[in-house]
């Protein structure tokens, strides 16, 4: 096991890793930018090294400074957290060349899965379903009709050079497809100077379901069941939970097995998340792999009782996974709300600045993961999340009730937070009944 590791991150995840290390008897070296100087969580590390000015590009993202801090700090490994350098295969490579363990997958696995198209290829080979599509450009109507009949209506027409919805069309039958193909081609030509379009099955009201996986260096790979993360705003997750509500047990098991199959096929090691979309008929399709720990990992920890950060560190150090698949059981229901320094009444405008006072919720089944404290100043330089409120209860109904009372207890003064918005979401019938899809927040709360 390691004696000393460096944490190449900031804020709540840095504190999360410091806590795990303290409990494991591992010394920690924290790095910080000048904007984070004086943050209380840095006092909990054994050493804290300033690596640059506020701008991430010159501090948290600056590979040579992080590595230099690791050398000066005399550590054996680096935990990258999430964001910043966590999925940077080059950084991972540099760590290896400097003989510092990177607590995460190998650079090779990261590279392989980092490209979405290659990842889809890998999934196909591992017999993990991906969203069916034409596989190549559609040149004429006849081909379009043929493909559409193969994959089934409705279909989505996408511009190969596209982005931002431009050149995208949904077609539900032959007639619409015939006209839409041409329109899409014309639009794509105008927008991107490239008329190439392809077809993909259109998933209506998809749910975002992801599977937590972890594998050691000895060939053991397990999943820690799934998380439902469909409550999103602009593709940013707001609320995550485990287990996913209204997911048939056989689907749950099939998705989780598929995730393990996929990571085993690339000899993936350490923690990762395999993301899927699930349609209204519970068909699931692989989307991508996040080759790192995720913000929402605590909900999995609550229901499985497994400390994922500790597990990451252990397997990176070469220890075998201390549990096998049969020992990973989901107990009860866990929900996480991301508390952001944003004003939900003003289009989620960021609200940095000094937190004059904060009362944190407590009690049975409540976990608050946050690095902030009274007097803390939310810097404007980084993402707006100031903490994660997580609850764990025997049933989902009780978890929602517990989250509501915990959100009532949470009081942050001096800045705006998204806590009030979470309360509205948690009380909406669609959420309560567990039928949220990824369009839920925009459809219900943000359209006027």
């Amino acid at each position, binding site marked *: 096991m390691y004696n000393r590791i460096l944490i190449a991150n900031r804020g709540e995840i840095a504190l999360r890793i410091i806590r795990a290390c303290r409990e494991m008897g591992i010394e920690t070296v924290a790095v910080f*930018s*000048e*904007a*984070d*100087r*004086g*943050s*209380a969580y840095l*006092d909990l590390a054994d050493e804290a*090294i*300033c*690596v*640059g*000015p*506020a701008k991430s590009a010159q*501090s948290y993202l600056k590979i*040579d*400074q992080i*590595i*230099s*801090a690791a*050398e*000066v*700090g005399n550590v054996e490994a680096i935990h990258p957290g999430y964001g910043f350098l966590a999925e940077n295969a080059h950084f991972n490579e540099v760590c290896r060349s*400097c003989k510092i363990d990177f607590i995460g997958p190998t650079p090779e696995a990261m590279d392989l899965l980092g490209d979405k198209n290659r990842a889809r290829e890998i999934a196909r080979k591992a017999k993990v379903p991906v969203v069916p599509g034409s596989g190549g450009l559609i040149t004429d109507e006849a081909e379009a009709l043929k493909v559409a009949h193969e994959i089934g209506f409705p279909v989505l027409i996408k511009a190969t050079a596209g982005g931002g919805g431009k050149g995208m069309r949904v077609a539900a039958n032959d007639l619409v497809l015939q006209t839409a193909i041409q329109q899409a081609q014309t639009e794509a030509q105008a927008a991107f100077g490239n008329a190439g379009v392809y077809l993909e099955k259109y998933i209506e009201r998809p749910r975002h379901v992801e599977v937590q996986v972890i594998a050691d260096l000895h060939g053991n790979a397990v999943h820690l069941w799934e998380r439902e993360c469909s409550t999103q705003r602009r593709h940013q997750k707001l609320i995550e939970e485990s287990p996913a509500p209204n997911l048939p047990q056989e689907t749950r098991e099939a998705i989780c097995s598929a995730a393990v199959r996929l990571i085993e096929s690339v000899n993936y090691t350490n923690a990762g998340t395999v993301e899927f979309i699930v349609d209204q008929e519970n068909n699931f399709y692989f989307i991508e792999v996040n080759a790192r720990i995720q913000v929402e990992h605590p909900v999995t920890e609550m229901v499985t009782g497994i400390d994922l950060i500790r597990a990451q560190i252990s397997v990176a150090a070469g220890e075998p996974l201390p549990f096998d698949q049969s020992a990973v059981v989901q107990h009860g229901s866990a929900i996480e709300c991301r508390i952001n320094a944003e004003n939900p009444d003003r289009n989620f405008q960021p609200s940095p600045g*000094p937190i*004059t*006072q904060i009362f944190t919720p407590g009690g049975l089944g409540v976990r608050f993961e946050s690095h902030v*404290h*009274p*007097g*803390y*100043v939310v*810097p404007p330089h980084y993402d707006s999340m100031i903490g994660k409120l997580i609850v764990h209860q025997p049933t989902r109904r009780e978890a929602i009730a517990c989250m509501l009372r915990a959100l009532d207890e949470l009081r942050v003064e001096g800045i705006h937070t998204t806590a009030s918005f979470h309360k509205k979401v948690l009380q909406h019938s669609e959420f309560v009944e567990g039928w949220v899809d990824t369009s839920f927040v925009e459809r219900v709360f943000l359209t006027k």
Partner: protein
Amino acid sequence: MAESESSGGVFDEQRFLRIVELMKEHDLSEVELRDSEQRISIKRGGTPAAPLTAPSVAAPASAPAAGSSQPAAAAEDPNVVVVKSPMVGTFYSKPNPKAASFVKVGDHVDPETTICIIEAMKVFNEIPAEISGKVVAVLATDEEAVEFGKPLFKIDTSG
């Protein structure tokens, strides 16, 4: 009287602003000037309860160093500039163990004078002074691990 009021009376805005400027520059929270019948008293920034809400263990991340190359000890002598480390690494005062130091107290340096080496990732980075002046203090010791912004030298730019 009219004369004095415009060019130095307590209500003279120019003088008032000059005092405020000096307060900002030297981070003064309170100034009181009194001369027989004249009196000027100014407080700035207030928040007397700062120590309550921002205890030592939790110094807010509010006021980051204004920039790494700014003089840190302006209050001492505005001409003395503190040269800070531009990177994390190991400090060396000389090119090799047997050589003499790049600079020592009393030496005059130019902006391009190498004043030390910071080793980072096996690379020995020569650090130039970036200003002209006389070295008045060396603040790091050989082979010391230095972080970004660590004060390395004091240089008197009036010298």
